[in-house]
């Protein structure tokens, strides 16, 4: 068990961050080059102020018509994305580990806050899954990979939650927690999770087209 722990908390961490950061740079850079070669329009029409206008409208809760049409989905989506980012980045235990390794640190949230956020992420994942099963228009689009992705995202939070509360096999849970976190990071650049990377560009481009060329709103 110790060997496995050392492995997942040592070399694998490096590997997953290299894949995540390197992969993200690779994806964005190759896409930018492909755009240069094949979609010159993207560069010609991209307009920073209209791009920003569109991005803002779509990251502010209820900033678009569609968000108003689906209030529950909107609230869950925001809670999910915010908790997903805040909880791991500002968890005391994570910060302590980083401090130990590199002697750098930043602010943290209380463990109970992190606990609530973790539960919110898990609950949101359950909501997304039920939505996939229940709504015909979502079910029609869904294939196995969508459930796998959902599991990849939920896993670090489920295992983290179980490890924190030490309800069962603490050591195993910690190992699974680290491992699933690494899988998620590595998956970001190469799966549909890459929407994290490309959102500003696709949103910004359609915002520029609508704003600068068509003089219309896009929200």
């Amino acid at each position, binding site marked *: 068990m110790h060997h496995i722990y050392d492995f997942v908390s040592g070399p694998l961490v490096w590997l997953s961050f290299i894949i995540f950061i390197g992969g993200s740079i690779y994806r964005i850079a190759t896409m930018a080059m492909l*755009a240069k070669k*094949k979609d010159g329009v993207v560069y010609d029409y991209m307009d920073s102020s209209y791009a920003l206008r569109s991005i803002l409208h779509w990251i502010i809760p209820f900033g*678009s018509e569609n968000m108003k049409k689906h209030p529950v989905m909107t609230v869950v989506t925001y809670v999910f994305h915010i908790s997903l980012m805040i909880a791991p980045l500002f968890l005391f235990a994570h910060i302590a580990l980083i401090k130990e390794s590199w002697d750098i640190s930043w602010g943290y949230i209380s463990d109970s806050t992190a606990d609530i956020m973790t539960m919110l992420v898990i609950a949101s994942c359950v909501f997304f899954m039920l939505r996939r099963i229940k709504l015909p*228009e979502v079910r029609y689009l869904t294939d196995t990979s969508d459930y796998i992705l959902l599991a990849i995202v939920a896993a670090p939070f489920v295992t983290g939650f179980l490890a924190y509360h030490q309800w069962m096999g603490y050591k195993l849970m910690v190992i699974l927690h680290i491992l699933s976190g690494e899988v998620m990071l590595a998956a970001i650049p190469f799966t549909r999770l890459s929407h994290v990377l490309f959102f500003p*560009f696709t*949103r910004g481009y359609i915002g520029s087209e*609508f704003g600068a060329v068509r003089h219309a709103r896009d929200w």
Partner: protein
Amino acid sequence: MYEGIVEDTQKAAIADLGIDKGVEALTPEKIETVITSFLESETGARFKTYADICVHCGLCSDACHYFLSNDRNPKFSPAGKVKQTIGEILKHKGKVSPKFIGQTAEIAFTECNVCKRCAMYCPFGIDVAYLMLTMRRLCHKLGVVPQYIQDTAHSHSATFNQMWVKEDEWIDSLQWQEDEARGDISNLRIPLEKEGSDIMYSVIGPEPKFRAQLIYQAAVIMETAGMNWTMPATPGWDNSDMCMYTGDSEMMGRLKRSHFETAARLKVKRIVMGECGHAFRSVYDMGNRWVGWKMPPIPVIHAIEFYDELFQKGKIKVTHKFEEPVTIHDPCNIVRGRGLHEKIRNVVHRTCSSLIEMYPNREHNYCCAAGGGVINCGPPFKAKRVEGDRVKADQLREAKSKGAKVVVAPCHNCHGGLEDIIHHYKLDMKLKFLGDIIYEVMEKTT
């Protein structure tokens, strides 16, 4: 090899010579070769990113009038249509059957108006209209295009106008309308080939063919407003473009080049075009880009913008206001395509006594289901088109219940589509162009 949807009996029921004969001529090998080279040469970062990041959330569904009108059938949702077409092609790496290509053609050409409403509903801003047009382009390359719209594209290729209008017939029609308009204004001219005019007025092929009175009305408006204008006597007079919708981009480019070169030859300051939506999209957005002009090389002003300007400058005055209450149908290509919705309302407020709004409106309007070349695919797909826009009928019915008697639709395709909807759903409402109303209420020079 992917064989396509098997159980769908409703789809097999629609026969179309263009699609059926095109499919007969295909082999799986040919399809794979064309798809491979097409994906390599004609798709790039946008296509790839859109395909890569869609998280299948289904939030685009509520944007689509086909989805809403077909009892929320997921096959009609924007992402659902992408899944059935481009999705399968990518999944099977081009190893798909001729029958499947026929099915995708039907989806891309007749179940999507490329109205871009869904681009406003996707959180990532994925442009499904662009994907559907890319799919149509692939169908064009495979020779599988609905017969009626392909015939229109042939007309464009042969005559540079949409309706097989010969050059002498064009000039004749203008002179005929000039003659008619002299009933209103005795010395009125429709100036042909007048070099150095301020304005070149261009229309779509169907105007001389079916709606010649619109040219007459435009001439009366131009004359009364004291405009220095002209119309070309040569090909290049037609600003319409069905090739843009069949995926024949090469022809789209040639048409736009001819249109702008005609304006350049006449040394006009700007082009004013009639009340047409798709032509505006072609001139302002898609055609010019294909030729390499980021924006139109000569300013193009849609009729609505022009009318608004005439009123603002006091060039035309009204003798009375149009009495019957009107409602406004916002055409996609000039609303989501150019943001002219407030200008339509400006003109309506100047000319009509009462406006009853339909909701949703402005950028969020529902399409007429005729645009994007769908009505041009002709009778085989008419029932599907009209039934696919029940939400529009509901909107119109609601406006009617509040008192609206006339629908103002400043777009040719919208007229065609709404006419069918009004008839099919027995709504008993009248349809007007803005030009019709202005002509009726304006003070005319005599």
